[in-house]
């Protein structure tokens, strides 16, 4: 519906933006990159990394070199979805199990975090009441919550989902609240003159105005959730990419661990790109 908003700015639009849209971060014009910069330079970077790795593996005998790594994990690379019982599944399955937990915890964090953020952003009384709680809990590593999750649910998966929920909650909550507080007062005055109901004030004015902030909160929290799931699975076991890493450590298979690191990184990158694309689609503007 909003596809009509042009990305490039004419002088008139940039003037209008400056005065009305402080809630939306201004975006520097994207540089037009030559194909050289798009493809060749990243490849050079990867090649350099592999080179350094090869050199280091010569100096440190415990570290497998790149060729060993690929040959020893070739079976895992070729068959990502084999299934030989509950403790022996392909990397694809491991990743999907982890993604499932992240998705569930992240979804719960959205359901709780956005409404809570809207309330905190709107009411300074609520904000003052909850600020100390949030300030104290936010810097706690989400993994510290894992034992509480285990004690509560008596099972690994709900405990991991709970941990992800706590992880993802803070960025969503705080960004939503900040976004709501930064809504230009003139928009709220328009709502007051029209005597919008509380609900319409939220849906027609506050949420659309805070949307860029909310979306960037979602992006941050999904990134952290993916960081945390690996660690929490290492602690709880079961099926999942984090447990896979731990299992391979017990097997002393550094080749498989290096492969898993690459996979975790690529999946994380994919998730981030996906969030960015979704955010761009929703707001019709590049967010950064």
């Amino acid at each position: 519906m909003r596809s009509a908003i042009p990305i490039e700015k004419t002088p008139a639009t940039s003037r209008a933006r400056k005065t009305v849209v402080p809630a939306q971060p201004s975006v520097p014009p994207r540089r037009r990159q030559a194909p050289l910069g798009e493809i060749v330079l990243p490849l050079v970077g990867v090649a350099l990394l592999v080179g350094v790795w090869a050199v280091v593996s010569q100096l440190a005998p415990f570290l497998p070199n790149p060729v060993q790594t690929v040959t020893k994990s070739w079976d895992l690379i070729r068959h990502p979805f084999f299934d030989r019982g509950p403790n022996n599944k392909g990397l694809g399955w491991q990743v999907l199990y982890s993604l499932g937990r992240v998705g569930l915890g992240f979804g719960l964090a959205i359901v709780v975090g956005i409404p809570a953020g809207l309330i905190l952003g709107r009411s300074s009384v609520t904000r003052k009441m909850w600020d100390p709680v949030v300030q104290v809990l936010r810097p706690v590593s989400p993994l510290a919550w894992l034992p509480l999750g285990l004690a509560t649910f008596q099972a690994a998966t709900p405990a991991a989902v709970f941990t992800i929920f706590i992880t993802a909650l803070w960025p969503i909550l705080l960004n939503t609240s900040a976004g709501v507080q930064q809504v230009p007062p003139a928009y709220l005055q328009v709502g007051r003159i029209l005597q919008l109901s509380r609900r319409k004030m939220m849906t027609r004015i506050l949420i659309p105005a805070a949307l860029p902030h909310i979306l960037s909160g979602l992006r941050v929290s999904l990134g952290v959730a993916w960081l945390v799931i690996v660690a929490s699975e290492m602690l709880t076991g079961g099926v999942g990419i984090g447990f896979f890493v731990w299992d391979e450590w017990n097997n002393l298979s550094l080749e498989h661990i290096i492969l898993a690191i690459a996979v975790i990184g690529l999946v994380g990158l994919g998730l981030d790109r996906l969030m960015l694309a979704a955010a761009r689609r929703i707001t019709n503007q590049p967010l950064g």
Partner: protein
Amino acid sequence: MSQFLQISDVTKTFETPRGPYPAIQHCTLSVGQGEFVTLIGHSGCGKSTLLSIVAGLTHPTTGGVILDGKEVTSPGPDRGMVFQQHALLPWLSAHDNVLLAVEEVFPSLSRKDQKDRVMHFLDMVGLIEAAQKYPAELSGGMCQRVGIARALAMRPKVLLLDEPFGALDALTRGHLQDEVLRIWQKFGQTVLMVTHDVDEAILLSDRIALMTNGPGATIGEVVRVDLPRPRNRRVIVGMPAYHDLKVRILEFLYERYELVS
């Protein structure tokens, strides 16, 4: 005597970190039905504060405002407001910005009648073609027109204009002034406008309220503009009455209440 819009002894003191700041004091002004009254004064004297009290967006510390026999206690669509920075919602098209207002004020109209009403008012400000465009795609003058259409579409008892042309270039400003004049004549709309442009005030107003400087600004004098209507800017500037009026206002603003800076 009670007027259509009666501002009675309004004082507003802001609580600031550096103590209370009395922005305006004892402001009294009445506006008759269908009258066009302008508030003029130096920037920062408290014009927007007074207008926002009439809109119900700000509560006066003492005093009050009565519109059409009812005391103003909160904002409402019977006071259509046009902001200096247009305040259109950037995620809605021009059409949908006006529609949001129409939906709220005329909930019993059918969807089609609501949309017809939107198009009618966009047409009045000459923006039919731009209806589906977003504020970022419109020039400052066009945004201001949408803001005027939005305010008029609420069928307000009084139209409140806060320096609506302040951010525009001289040519666009002239066009919009003519447009507001035309709409005012057509509807008999009561208007209270804020400006710091003396020529604009004389061209548009029946009466001009001159504000003293803050802190504690008040309405120092109210002058009547006895120029024949319909007014044409090129014709009235040659009239002696225009000249006298302008001298009188400028004298008030620049000799008696010059900004001490």
